């Protein structure tokens, strides 16, 4: 065998940049496959000289792929480390590359979606919106900053980590239970923030008033004495229940628009 094949820093940087374009050719048949293949091209070019080997590697990464975008540099790093081994060792089991990719994309998608979509984005948006409702430019800026600093850090260090430590690293983390703790923290904070947003960002109150023997009874005042923001809470819980009952979101949206117009016309809200 000739000299050992090794990826350069330049290649990894190129993989990082390309990983942003993951969903450029998203399709229903194999989802992010072409985007992932595109991400891996710098590694394939560096590691394989023969057309036949290059072709096999390209086809390998054109298989179905779908995960949460932020996790892709990590998976690409691990795949690149495995391709490197494959290029240097005749007896490397090539099929293990896709086996590992497939094994990673499910769990990482779950973790990434809950951490980034489900939690970080909500916290960032909640804080951003609280400024933006007053027309303050800090709102959108803070939103982007709060989301993207962790987003970019996970991408950069995920790639480094995936490439240098390889397949075993993720198993180790899983065993130590660190990921579970991070997930648990994220879910907790996410729920606390959603609760706070229901109280501060849903403006629902009733103008209903009655005259009982000359005494004015203002319904909203009574509701406030029971629990401030009771109406927003009830509304959210009812819709939550309907979503769990598999009501369609689009139909719910349209129904609420009509509901809003009707109850306003009737003087209830």
């Amino acid at each position, binding site marked *: 065998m000739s000299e050992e094949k090794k990826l350069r820093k330049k290649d990894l940087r190129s993989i990082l940049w390309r*990983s942003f374009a993951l969903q450029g050719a998203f399709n229903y048949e194999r989802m992010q496959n072409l985007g992932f293949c595109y991400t891996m091209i710098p590694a394939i070019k560096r590691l394989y000289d023969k057309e036949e080997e290059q072709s096999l590697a390209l086809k390998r990464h054109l298989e179905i792929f779908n995960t949460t975008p932020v996790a892709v540099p990590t998976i690409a790093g691990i795949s690149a480390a495995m391709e490197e081994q494959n290029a240097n060792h005749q007896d490397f089991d090539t099929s293990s590359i896709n086996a590992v990719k497939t094994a990673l994309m499910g769990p990482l998608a779950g973790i990434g979606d809950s951490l980034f979509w489900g939690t970080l984005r909500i916290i960032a948006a909640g804080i951003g919106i609280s400024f933006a409702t007053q027309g303050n430019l800090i709102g959108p800026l803070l939103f982007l900053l709060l989301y993207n600093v962790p987003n970019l850090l996970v991408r950069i260090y995920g790639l480094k980590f995936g490439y240098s430590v390889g397949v075993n690293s993720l198993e180790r983390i899983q065993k130590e239970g660190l990921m579970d703790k991070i997930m*648990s923290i994220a879910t*907790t904070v996410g729920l606390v923030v959603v609760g706070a947003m229901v109280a501060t960002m849903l403006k629902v109150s009733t103008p209903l008033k009655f005259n009982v023997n000359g005494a004015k009874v203002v319904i909203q005042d009574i509701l406030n004495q029971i629990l401030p923001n009771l109406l927003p809470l009830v509304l959210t819980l009812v819709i939550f229940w309907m979503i769990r009952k598999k009501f369609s979101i689009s139909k719910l949206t349209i129904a609420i628009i009509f509901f*809003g117009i009707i109850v306003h016309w009737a003087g209830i809200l």
Partner: protein
Amino acid sequence: MLTQALLLGLIAGIGILDGRIFGVLMLERPLVLGALVGLVLGDFKTGIIIGAQLELIWMGIAGIGSSTPPDVVTGGVLGTAFAILSGKGPEVALALAVPIAVLAQSLGVLVRVINTYFIHKADKYAKKADFKKVTLMMWIPVVLFFLSVFVPTFLAILLGADKVTTLINAVPKVILDGLTIAGNLLPAIGFALLMDMLFSKKMSVFFFIGFLAASYLKIDVMAIALMGVCIAIILNFFVNNEGNQLSKKGNDADSLTEGEINFE
């Protein structure tokens, strides 16, 4: 109007490409696009306010997995633009944005179907190890995605702005006010969708902690988020018992599988 239509089309294009080739930096969200639309139309402040309102409504909508959610990019840009152009408030934005997003979604679906053709082409070029052609197959769909929002936005502003404005002005006041009410109600869907993602019986107490802290103590969201982090860290790192693997047990049942949420 031509320049504005072009710029707004471009904003929508950047928005849609965010999820395609910019690694989902959140540029696609109404909170960001609303500000940009406001900037182009010379009413920055209103743009930001409308963006915040639409963000609240659509916060729960996410393109997770293989599904195609309502197109918040085209909906957000056009809704915000028409609201500013007609001089009416956020209620007009949401009345227009919601249906537009649902309509525009079908174009996104179409592109994803067409892309399959380029995937098969890429297979062929991969056989010959033709890196350049494989890369090209990757970038043609990107152009299609861009056009799928640029063209509708551009045309709607160029041809439709006057008509939509006239239409909006013809709507009676009681309906517009009702829309404001509806707009106040709609974020509940977003919150409920988020809860659907995070909520399990065991974890529900944290939702109420947040709600009560904001309701009774009037603490703002930023402060509540930070205190939430502290509570979560205490529970996970200092309180040591088996029952604390909350997320493990809790999330398995409620994990984010896209198929469970029905967007249609």
